[in-house]
């Protein structure tokens, strides 16, 4: 009772990165709260899926395994979570801010009348004093998230309703297994106790999912281009630099919108979050929505013709000048110095 639950997404027998990231965060929070970490997996052919989850420190794993439960549709997954949470009374529930988590989370929170905070970038435990009611709440989940188009950061709490629910985007939390031999108790509940025939009224007719080929998130160096790159052809400069440095190429939304690069490379609030050792921002002004996806980079080089560009405020190295001139020099002197 009153434990911390993580809803784990599975596609083709593999637990999603975002779920493993949430288990990692959940383990730390559970230690702080001195409660258990419990995982819920809903899908089909889930044999041995627990082996992917228990190393992250899950104490209990619920496996809802039935051919009708994959691919994901809203109603059966929602019915299962609602019933399970009514029985188990979790204090905290974490879901990925993915197309699934963002479809499922609000539905479940509405049925349970519990608060849900979207797209958290940080989760912490803390107390809250309600001065008006003269009441102190211990060990609440602080759900910290950007809102207002990234222009403000809000600390959200759910003082009275349980569970405290939050979604977190992929790549925001770190993923770290704690013990390859960690043993979880595995429950396989009877599906019919949780779902009814009417839950299957919505049918999937067709699905086209592409595997993600890029690994920008995992790259230790990202060379990123913005609208200032000027054209698709000029982006070649960035690929060249990325090649010699062993980096991946990222982009701002303005560069994506202008058709210089594919959307899958977009970094920022509506793209991916990266935290590489080095982020090289070329012709990027540095609007909040972009910064949201890269501001935790260990070091930043900003190349911009505008000495006042906002990106410079978070750069370690500011190069004021034309990227078409700067990048070839970087390539040249990199080669010279590594010879």
């Amino acid at each position, binding site marked *: 009772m009153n434990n911390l639950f993580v809803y784990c997404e599975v596609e083709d027998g593999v637990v999603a990165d975002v779920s493993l990231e949430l288990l990692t965060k959940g383990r730390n929070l559970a230690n702080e709260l001195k409660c258990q970490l419990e995982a819920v997996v809903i899908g089909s052919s889930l044999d041995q899926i627990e082996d992917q989850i228990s190393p992250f420190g899950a104490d209990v794993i619920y496996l809802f395994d039935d051919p009708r439960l994959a*691919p994901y549709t*809203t109603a059966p997954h929602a019915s299962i979570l609602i019933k399970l949470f009514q029985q188990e009374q979790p204090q905290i529930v974490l879901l990925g801010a993915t*197309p699934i988590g963002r479809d499922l*989370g*609000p*539905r479940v*929170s*509405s*049925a349970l*009348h*519990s*608060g*849900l*905070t*979207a*797209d958290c970038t940080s989760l912490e435990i803390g107390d809250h004093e309600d001065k008006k009611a003269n009441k102190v709440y211990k060990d609440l989940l*602080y759900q910290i998230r*950007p*809102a*207002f*188009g990234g*222009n*403000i*950061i*809000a*600390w959200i*709490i*759910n003082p*009275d*309703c349980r569970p405290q629910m939050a979604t977190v985007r992929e790549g925001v939390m770190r993923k770290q297994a704690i013990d390859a031999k960690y043993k979880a108790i595995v429950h396989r509940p009877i599906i019919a106790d949780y779902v009814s025939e009417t839950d299957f*009224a*919505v*049918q*999937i*007719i*067709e*699905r*086209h*999912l592409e*595997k993600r080929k890029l690994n920008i998130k995992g790259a230790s*160096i990202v060379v990123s281009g913005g609208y200032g790159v000027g054209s698709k052809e000029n982006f070649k400069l960035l690929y060249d630099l990325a090649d010699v*440095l062993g980096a991946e190429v990222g982009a701002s939304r303005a560069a994506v919108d202008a058709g210089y690069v594919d959307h899958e490379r977009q970094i920022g609030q509506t793209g991916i979050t990266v935290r590489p*050792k080095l982020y090289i921002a070329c012709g990027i002004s540095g*609007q909040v929505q972009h910064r949201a996806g890269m501001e935790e980079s260990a070091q930043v080089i*900003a190349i911009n013709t505008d000495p006042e560009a*906002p990106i*410079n405020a978070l*750069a*370690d*190295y500011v*190069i*004021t*000048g034309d990227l078409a001139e700067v990048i070839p*020099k*970087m390539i040249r*002197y*990199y080669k*010279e*110095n*590594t010879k």
Partner: protein
Amino acid sequence: MKKGFRIIVLAKQVPDTRNVGKDAMKADGTVNRAALPAIFNPEDLNALELALRIKDNNPGTTVTLLTMGPGRAAEIVREGLYRGADDGVLLTDRAFAGSDTLATSYALAQTIKVMGEFDLIVSGRQAIDGDTAQVGPQVAEKLKINQITYVEEVLQVDPDFLVVRRRLDNGVETLKAPLPLLLTVNSSAPNCRSRNAKLLMRYKQARTVTERQEAAEDYLYLYDSRPFLNILEITASEIFATPDLLGLSGSPTKVKRIENVVLQAKDAVRLNTNDEGIHDLMKELIESHVIG
């Protein structure tokens, strides 16, 4: 056979948080919200277009806009009428102040219940101020109907079901779902048609009761002879709501603290584009094992 569909479009008035320009920034580097124009939430325009296309192809279909907000949100209803909606409802009351997504969806769902039978509810995926994308699914749950999120296109309309395509991060999915149903619509869906000049003329004087009370006497005769100029205004007392579930008291989430994003400059090494500067930079990065 049933004649047409009754569609309700949920639309929110939002401050334009996109491209917050230099003029909207205060001297301390924070956003001056008052300087941001109030606009029709962008994805709600995609939602309206999706509904209007069903209306175009299915005679007898009506599209009703529903918005919850302060009095000036009547502007959203008028904008919808100019683009082809049949009528609109403004849900407005002090009792709704401080609503989180749950209290917002409760108020919207209670209103939809008093609005009578419907076939389809269409909302935007996400509002650009709260940015949660939670209201659509929560309204669906409160009405006990199915939902499909991230919808891009309606492929087939049948009296009893729809076939729709949804756009996900990594692909597309086609689903068939029975009516009544709620859809949330993505920005990848077709853009909304622009205002129609005839409709603009027709609805320019459309007003809520409150707006009429403030309007000049000379126009008042209009509203008796032209009932389509009445924008229905609904308050909390008319939706059979439990007061505790509205506004701040009906909101499980509380904002404990808000911080404006302020840019603080780091102590950066400033370089220009001469060869020496770049040479030294690359050398330094290699020596400190950041690259190489």
